[in-house]
């Protein structure tokens, strides 16, 4: 159970730069225990999240490439679970709200494009280096 807890903390921190509260961790563990959605069929995926966590690799850069290979890989699924829980628990509402007044939306878009390129390059490099 601890490994799921650590995994949840690591993935959550990657998104929100802080530790999740206990109820969030409980829900994350429940999704794993109460559904078959997180069953790992591919042996290569079994230690993937642990490896990323241990080596402190860039989750999102790597996930981008894994998603290109297989849309339903375990890392994408786990990140989606983090997002589903955070969107619906009422505590992260401002992050998902779409009526925020953006002072300069184009700045956000351009920054996103630049950051995307950077993350994708980092992801490609880390995947190659770590044989993922």
């Amino acid at each position, binding site marked *: 159970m601890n490994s799921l807890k650590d995994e949840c903390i690591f993935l959550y921190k*990657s*998104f929100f730069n802080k530790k999740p509260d206990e109820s969030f961790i409980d*829900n994350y563990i*429940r*999704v794993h225990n*109460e*559904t078959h*959605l997180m069953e790992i069929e591919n042996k290569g995926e079994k230690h993937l999240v642990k490896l990323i966590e241990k080596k402190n690799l860039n989750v*999102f*850069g790597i*996930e*981008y490439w894994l*998603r290109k290979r297989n*849309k*339903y890989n375990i890392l*994408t*699924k786990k*990140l*989606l*679970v983090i*997002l*589903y*829980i955070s*969107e*619906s*628990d*009422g*505590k992260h*509402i401002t*992050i*998902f*709200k*779409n*009526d*925020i*007044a*953006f002072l*300069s*939306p*184009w700045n*956000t*878009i351009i920054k*996103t*494009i630049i*950051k*995307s390129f950077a*993350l*994708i390059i980092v*992801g490609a490099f880390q995947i190659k280096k770590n044989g993922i």
Partner: protein
Amino acid sequence: MEYDYLIVGSGPGGVSAARQLCYANTAILDVGYTPDRKFKHSKLSEALESGDMESLLGTNWETLDNIESEFNIHRKIKSADLRYVMNGEIFRVYDSNGRFITKGNGSYAKGGMANVWGAQLLKYNKKDLDEVNGWPISINELEAYYTELEDHIGISGVNDDMSQFLGESDNLLPPVELSITSKYLLNNYNLLKAAKPDIGIKVGRARVAVSTVDRNGFAKYKAGSTEFFKPTGEGIYNPKNTLDSLIQNKSISYFSNQKLIKYKEFEDYVEIITTNNKNEYNHYKTKHLLLACGTIQTAKLVLMNEQLTNARINFVDHPPILLPFIFPKCIGNIINNDYFPIQLTATLNNKRDMISLYHPAGMMKTEYLLQLPIPLNLSKNVLSLLLNSMLIAQIWETSTENNGCLYLDDNCDICIKYPYPKKKNIFKLIYLMFQMGGITVPNLASRYPPTWGYHHAGTLPMSLEPGLLQTHTDGRLWKYKRIRVIDGSVLPSLPAKNHSLTLMANSARIADLTKKCGY
């Protein structure tokens, strides 16, 4: 129990026939499964803000099902509260190579599939039927029923440029409110058209069964983006409302918890056997039996009764294409999500494809994140900006090729074999939308799998000279006098438009013919 008319099924087809046959010793039977819980929020934003995770993700995390595979479960039945309406017969869909594509369900709920419909109720016209061929009835035979149904249901919309395609209608209710992006597109269309009359596309307001005013004792539509979380709500027409009125007026009898398992025709009557959830059997007698269990369920029922479980029958569908358009000028607009999702309709000149333009709301943001080809954390940051400036085109094509089939497997479960349609050229649409301020890339177009749009038809098609597993133009099964089919099964092919109103009009027509048949 003896009735003159017995209708099985309380969806759009069954209720439409019941309206014609009321006060005539008529009964409706259905399974009438009812929910044991309800999505208790009037707005999606309310549920999100309150942190009602159980309502949003389901008691058993049902909403997460698609993270395993996109087509694992239809978006419309992901939520726990919508699943009850779609808990009817399961069907599995395979492509032409026998590869599993997806699975779906019929409905056992009062109101049937209308509980999850998009509420576009559109008339076919002569051109539609000319294009699909094979319809043994003319559009004139449906006209009067269309008009009467439109009056009864209340359709919102406008007689505008799309009237050439959708037909002129009297008594339209005011149209649904447009989002800023939809207004922008419509304005650009009008400007473009003023400069050059023949621009190659027509755009107009959506025609939907949504009451934009309080009407007939029902409150007007309250926008709340909850369509993916609960059955059709206030202001959206549901045959269930009509059925409740008919029951209240005592103009028909209604029996729920009855699943038809067997019918048999005798010289002067039809006998049917139903079962309930306690596995008790009930017997009914009727002069005329009208089957309205839904295209797929009625087909199975007929195959089982005729002991033709090895037969393969026709199946018609039109799998839609989805293509998102972003309107850069609208980026940064602050909008709420409380619009009816279907905003505009369009059609390309010289083609009869129908394009519905949707405001992307009603789902959790996480549902969209994988659609953006960038890392997930950045998708999350930029998605809200893009959604506000986006319209999603859903493209429906005419389905003339009868290349799908329905059959029962060894366990008598329903299987559908349907080849993925060929790739479609969407470049003209992309070019025309670009002229109106919308941009996209062809790679974002996705073809939904067969059956995904729930536009099913043609399993027991009408014919002037019906053969085995076909129907007469008055709905009678090929060799029967008193057993008729009145749902989508009898529509031989599908023009590009939504077929709900047509199956209702045809059902009313068959009910009328039944009444006048003289026996």
